[in-house]
């Protein structure tokens, strides 16, 4: 053991003192009364004071210090845990708010799109209605105009026949010199044309 270190130190300076073998370690002692840690008259005062001092220390530790330090540590732990819990709650709240906000934005966007679509639809409908109305009007006008034209045409054609009858009658009159019955002329003409 380490005790061997002692021996040369003892040997170096063991002159005048009484040699004395002490204890199980076999170390040499050379002070009056022996090696201090093994002097029996030193035992009692040390033990008495040790018991007193260690006893008081134990009481102070177990009654005051350790519960206090334990309390501090526990306090800190609960504080940290509750703070973390609170922050987690806040985070959850913030996330919920963000989700609600997004949902809201989505709804509003859909609404806006619907409004846009409706407006477009309405405008398209109106435009279509106006076009059809304009088209029917135009068609009516065209029809009326065509009727007028065909009436004018028939009238004009009727006039042409009369003019032709008159002209034919007068030509025949001039050529033959005889009077011409216009009705008979027309009937004859119709007869010739149909055969």
């Amino acid at each position, binding site marked *: 053991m380490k005790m061997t270190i002692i021996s040369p130190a003892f040997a170096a300076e063991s002159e005048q003192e009484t040699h004395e073998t002490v204890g199980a370690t076999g170390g040499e002692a050379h002070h009056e009364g022996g090696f201090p840690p093994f002097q029996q008259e030193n035992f009692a005062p040390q033990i008495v004071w040790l018991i007193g*001092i260690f006893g008081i220390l134990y009481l102070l530790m177990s009654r005051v210090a*350790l519960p206090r330090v334990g309390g501090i540590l526990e306090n800190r732990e609960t504080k940290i845990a509750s703070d973390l819990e609170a922050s987690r709650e806040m985070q959850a709240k913030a996330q919920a708010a963000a989700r609600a906000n997004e949902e809201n934005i989505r709804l509003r966007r859909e609404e806006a799109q619907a409004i846009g679509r409706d407006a477009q639809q309405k405008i398209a409908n109106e435009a279509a209605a106006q076009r059809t109305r304009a088209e029917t009007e135009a068609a009516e006008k065209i029809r009326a105009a065509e009727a007028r034209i065909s009436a004018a045409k028939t009238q004009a054609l009727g006039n042409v026949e009369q003019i032709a009858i008159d002209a034919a009658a007068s030509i025949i009159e001039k050529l033959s010199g005889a009077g011409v019955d216009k009705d008979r002329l027309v009937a004859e003409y119709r007869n010739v044309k149909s055969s």
Partner: protein
Amino acid sequence: MSAEETVSQPNPIEQFELHRIFPLEINGIETSFTNASLFMLLAALGVVALMVLATSRQAIVPGRIQSLAEMLYEFVANMVRQTAGKEGMKFFPFVFSLFSFILIANLIGLVPYTYSVTSQIVVTFAFAALVLTLVVVYGVYRNGLGFLKLFVPHGVPLPVLVVLVPIEIISFLSRPISLSVRLFANILAGHITLAVFGGFVVLLLASNGWSFLAPVPLLAIVALYALELLVACLQAFVFSVLTCVYLNDAIHPGH
């Protein structure tokens, strides 16, 4: 460490002498207040200053000394929990007092001109006897005769037990001796070594022509001092860990 050494006669064991500061005797028992008592008191006051005064503010965010106190608390608490289990925590105040007292006493003893309380076999043996008494008393109180299972390891065949039980008993009985001598011898040897090397410095300085060698043992002292700081902490730790191990035996004697 040794205080006033004469140049011719450095005395490495003078530092362990007990000086009666107030001689006193009660009922035939000497209860003198000695230098040992003084440094026991200082060590205890050091522990109290650390654990009671420094934590008086009970700050959520600790200061330096308070966090030192908390570290010590958690260190010992973990040690007890790991070695002696949850049930061992009822001995936590005891182990803590033991560890902190021995640690502070060891550290104070390393300051020059102080007295090392734990360099006295009677002190370390008193602690060891206290621990072992506690182990036996609690072991019997908790387990009754079942405490004797401590000497009968579980699952060992009968022929082996015949040999093993006496060995277990001897090892149990030698515990207070090994526990006390380990701490005592380490501290004693360390202090003697430091004083011897200190003596070498003095002797070399006083010698003719060899004084230039004086820094060599001085450097050795520096290195040894670092080692002794380690030993001071380590031995306090070893003492308390073994205390926990023995208490664990008292709680669970059947292994």
